[in-house]
């Protein structure tokens, strides 16, 4: 198996890459912006799992480069893990459209742009799978991060449509909906320890979903129930909550 990881400097993505390298002996394309970091990660995965791992420059928001980027991959991947994302600063984004735009670009437009290129190839070949990291933040808008949430919500809707389209061609699309993961993204936030998942736990959940044929996976599992409750609160009440 050959796996393409987009945003491979994400800590969650690193764990997913390790899981597939260990269990599937997957060869890895690690694609992201910070190449130095990426090379260290590639070297590490290659030594630990005795697989091929290659570091490749990729910028999700440089849309026009995506075609050429995908063209350059040889062999073409059997699966894609899309993990890049940008939490951003909600308050700044309210004042400054440039920040809002960065958030939407990194979480949604970049994904849309590169996944259309990949989907076209997978659809033609009738082969491949796509795992994409969205977020529970996209399930309902909250004042503390609704711009990020809106971008992730758009991504979740997009993935559902893509799944619907590619299903006929046997191409799977798996939507990953994490709650909180202990990564550099959340390091300086004060989040409840009980709700945090380690990247390795997320990787186990993702791999299990891949094996079992699930379309949507909450990680950790209890977020499904938390979100069920959150989504069921009437808007009349919800708008008064401080969330």
């Amino acid at each position, binding site marked *: 198996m050959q796996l393409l990881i987009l945003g491979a400097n994400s*800590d969650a993505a690193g764990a997913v890459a390790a899981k597939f390298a260990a269990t599937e002996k997957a060869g890895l394309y690690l694609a992201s912006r910070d190449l*130095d*970091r990426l090379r*260290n*990660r590639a*070297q*590490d995965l290659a*030594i*630990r799992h005795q697989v091929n791992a290659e570091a490749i420059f990729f910028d999700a928001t440089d849309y026009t480069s995506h075609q050429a980027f995908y063209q350059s991959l040889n062999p073409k991947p059997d699966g894609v893990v899309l993990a890049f994302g940008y939490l951003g600063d909600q308050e700044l984004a309210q004042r400054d459209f440039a920040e809002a735009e960065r958030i939407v670009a990194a979480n949604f437009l970049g994904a849309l742009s590169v996944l259309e290129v990949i989907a076209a190839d997978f659809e033609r070949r009738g082969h491949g799978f796509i795992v994409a990291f969205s977020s529970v933040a996209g399930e309902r808008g909250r004042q503390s991060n609704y711009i990020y949430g809106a971008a992730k919500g758009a991504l979740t809707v997009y993935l559902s449509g893509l799944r619907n389209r590619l299903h006929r061609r046997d191409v799977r699309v798996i939507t990953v909906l994490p709650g909180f993961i202990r990564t*550099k993204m959340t*390091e*300086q936030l*004060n989040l409840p*320890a009980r709700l945090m998942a380690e990247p390795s736990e997320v990787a186990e959940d993702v791999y299990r979903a891949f094996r079992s044929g699930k379309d949507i996976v909450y990680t950790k599992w209890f977020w499904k129930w938390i979100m069920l409750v959150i989504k069921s609160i009437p808007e009349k009440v919800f708008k008064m909550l401080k969330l």
Partner: protein
Amino acid sequence: MKLSGWGRYPWIEAAGVSFETPEELAGYLKTSAAGIVHGLGRSYGDSALNEHVIFSRRFNKIIHFDDATGVVTAESGVTLAEIIATFLPRGWFLKVTPGTKFITLGGAIASDVHGKNHHQAGCFSECVLYFDLMLPGGNVVRCSRDQNRDLFLATCGGMGLTGVVLAAAFRLQPVKSAYIRETVIRCRNLHEVIDLFEENKSIDYSVAWIDCLARGDKMGRSVLMLGEHAKTGRKTPPPRPSLSIPMNLPGFCLNQYSVSWFNHFYYHRQPEFVSGRLVHLDPFFYPLDKINQWNRMYGRHGFTQYQFVLPKAAGRDGLRAILSRISAAGLGSFLAVLKLLGPKNENLLSFPLEGYTLALDFKIQPRLFPFLDKLDRIVLDHGGRLYLAKDVRMSEQTFKQGYPKWTELHRLRRSLNLITKFNSLQSKRLGV
């Protein structure tokens, strides 16, 4: 966030950052307050604690492996468990390993850890070829026995007080299998076990479990375990942990009666003599790793491990004196481990001295610290000292008397401005 060492005492409110590259760390050090590196927090006491901590867990890449020489180069946040999982199936194992594999490479260097083969192989630093060390200004120096030797000797065993260990190169040993040929001998008292340690010095690994509550002519009754790498057998990866202690057990679960009962049961469960049975190296080296978070067993007040070493000449008398105090006090210790140590090395603060080391776990309770102060006196009177990786309460004076080379470390820390950037609760308590 709330943070503690393995003993779950004390807890401290700490602000933590992690890093993945030396550049990130250097950027942080430019503006940061004084702090200390926190690896996997397997040191029992307060050596990895401060209001500001630097987590090494994301700085954990393996950089190189030379399969001709068995030399691994890796970042300091890599764990020994990961090293074993990666290289044991290829026929390589650690040259020196402590009693848990859930520690980082940085923690192994900073505590200069020892294992059951100390009498032959020395401390972890023996297998370290070099490491890179980041100093307060963000500059990185390579340290080895030839290069920046003073910093090498100060950092191995230096408890994070000389800077941040970045990448390190260290040697593994080739093994033919993942199994150990183990011999188990029941010993009726202290003399018997010490004689057997001496008789079996040529065996690679040796350690004894000792019943601290036995008195009179049974004092020091113990079970001695000897082991050598098996010459044949599979190189299967170690099994996964299976049990876990989900919450703090109520403190009263461990008292002198339950401990004494446990010790009695454990002692008599062992056959008197087992010769050369094959056991996987995982349960042989890491029996406690089987139970996740076993440190919760001691209840919500936490526990500490008291580990001391006595020079050989004073060993038997000193051990008798201490064991009789412990059995008389009835403070109870589940695990007491006795081990023969080989000659000391040149590092400024490495713990081992040629002699005997005993490690005992105690539940934290009001009577404990005054009692341990009394034991400190006996240890010092016999020319011994306590292990910093386990310590949470020794006095400055006890430390300075046990580790006369502390003055050299202090001089180095002053001259390199380390005092302003690297401190732990322990280093402040001990005045280094």
